[in-house]
């Protein structure tokens, strides 16, 4: 499946200052145009026109939910109370996803500028970076660079003599997947058990301590300085598809020769990412399927090998771009076993607040374990389907995300499940 055309060069925006072994310094970030957007916009014009630019750029949230960042900013009412908060969601825990780690290690000032600009648009005075404890090195980098930015006048009181004040704290989580969910994250920051809350009210109205709170993903915030500096049209022109906008950090892992994080246009064909950037399939094997956007997306089968990696195109085939963490499987991989592993994750990480999720995931996991290990019965397929249906009534987005791979397994690979049941065991294990 190797492509005949040579590897294309695409513009690097978010990873323009990436070095193999070290972070970009403040000086390097500045000489690449960094902090220019902050200097040009702070106090210079109405915040509304800046928000319009973000909205016109169609910057969709990069944390997995794809909510338009411009729309989110506009939901903070002009007369909303103060103080207001900006939270950077660096609690990257979606299996397969490691792009925010790469981004923070590459160019931390890009995130700091993105936060300062977003805070300015929302009139927020306090910023918090909520980071998972496994990213201790990233947390230390951010603490150090926030201090450097403060000394340079980009954070703190009266930033660049604009009259606008904003500062950032780094908050280390105790570590749980659900803390990546916005309302759970806000509870975590308030020292409460991080159960999700069901809006309304939305966090932009009543969030942290009951005050207006904007929560954005690391990559989303990093796009902001570039959009404000170069305009919405420029951002849209980065994408290869009509409906898409911007570049995307694709984290590729699994059965490829060179797993890694690559900044490529929204809308690039999946096959091009795998062959030209991730080094092609390992050991000369064939692409069987992938999870295109983390564990909470469905299996994308081989017939979509050339699909444009865009929010809309994945939606049109019943899937999601999610976090664009592409996890690749070859023809020797058993997708029943892979789904069982994912369910182990969801069963462990369910916060336990609501019954469908707390009870459903262990049940799904045990059914798949039995099918994988030769104890499968034909009626289990119906039981799996019924459970998935019931679990869509769960309280938050965790459960619908977690059942996505199970539903796609049932829809696309039912004959693989049947082969396990009829053969009393895993056909892939026998072959290897």
């Amino acid at each position: 499946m190797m492509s005949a055309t040579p590897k294309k060069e695409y513009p690097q925006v978010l990873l323009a200052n990436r070095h193999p072994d070290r972070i970009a310094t403040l000086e390097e970030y500045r000489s690449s145009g960094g902090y220019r957007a902050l200097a040009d916009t702070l106090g210079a014009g109405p915040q509304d026109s800046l928000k319009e630019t973000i909205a016109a750029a169609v910057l969709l949230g990069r944390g997995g939910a794809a909510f338009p960042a411009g729309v989110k900013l506009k939901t903070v009412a002009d007369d909303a109370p103060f103080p207001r908060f900006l939270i950077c969601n660096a609690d990257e825990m979606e299996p397969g996803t490691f792009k925010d780690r790469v981004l923070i290690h590459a160019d931390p000032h890009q995130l700091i500028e993105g936060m300062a600009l977003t805070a300015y648009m929302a009139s927020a005075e306090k910023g918090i970076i909520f980071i998972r404890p496994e990213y201790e090195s990233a947390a230390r980098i951010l603490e150090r660079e926030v201090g450097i930015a403060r000394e340079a006048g980009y954070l703190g009181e009266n930033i660049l003599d604009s009259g606008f004040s904003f500062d950032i704290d780094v908050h280390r989580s105790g570590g749980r997947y659900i803390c990546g969910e916005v309302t759970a994250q806000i509870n975590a920051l308030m020292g409460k058990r991080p159960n999700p809350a069901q809006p309304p009210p939305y966090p932009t109205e009543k969030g942290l301590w009951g005050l207006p709170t904007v929560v954005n993903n690391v990559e989303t915030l990093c796009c902001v300085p570039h959009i404000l500096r170069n305009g919405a049209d420029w951002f849209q022109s980065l994408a290869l598809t009509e409906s898409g906008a911007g570049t995307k950090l694709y984290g590729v892992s699994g059965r490829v020769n060179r797993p890694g994080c690559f900044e490529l246009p929204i809308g690039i064909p999946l096959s091009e990412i795998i062959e030209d950037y991730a080094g092609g399939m390992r050991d000369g094997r064939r692409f069987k399927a992938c999870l295109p956007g983390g564990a909470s997306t469905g299996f994308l089968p081989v017939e979509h090998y050339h699909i444009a990696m865009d929010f809309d195109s994945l939606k049109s085939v019943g899937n999601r771009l999610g976090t664009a963490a592409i996890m690749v499987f070859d023809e020797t991989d058993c997708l029943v076993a892979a789904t069982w592993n994912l369910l182990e994750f969801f069963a462990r990480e369910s916060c336990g607040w609501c019954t469908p999720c707390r009870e459903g995931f262990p049940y799904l996991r045990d059914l798949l374990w039995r099918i994988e290990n030769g104890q499968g019965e034909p009626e289990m397929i119906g039981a799996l389907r019924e459970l998935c249906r019931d679990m869509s009534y769960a309280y938050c987005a965790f459960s619908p995300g977690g059942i996505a791979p199970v539903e796609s397994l049932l829809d696309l690979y039912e004959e693989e499940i049947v082969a396990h049941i009829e053969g009393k065991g895993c056909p892939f294990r026998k072959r290897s």
Partner: protein
Amino acid sequence: MLPADLREKLERTIETADHPRELAVDVMMALQEHYGHLSDEAVAEAAQLLDMSEVEIDELATFYTFIYREPVGRYVIHVCDSLICWMDGYEKLRDHLARKLNIAMGGTTDDGLFTLLPVCCVGYCDRSPAMLVNRRVHGNLTPEKVDAILDGLRESARSADETSSG
């Protein structure tokens, strides 16, 4: 009991916070650092410091992966068992560690040096299989690499003990 200097340091930090309970995780982590795990005594102290009830602290402590309510070894090894690490040899890695340390998942070695625990995706899928030792990541693991890491940890424990006793 909590040493006076640590107690004062935590009290000073809590004073600067708008809402003491926003520091719940930080305080639990600091106490855990001191005691080795979050003991019942530490739960009571955290509650007192943060003006929260013990049950509220315990509710948080038992929720988070990196707060340990039971004694753990000096080095807590969390082995990633999520999809990509699992595809790239998690089970072999786990068995190798269990054999080398002579403990099962969840166990602690008799000398109190190592605890072995599974953990969900740690965000190093580009360097699978991976594990954390006291939250520091080690990736692209092979049995040889694991052996070298364990030897290095034993060595640093030994030299730290010699320094503190000498």
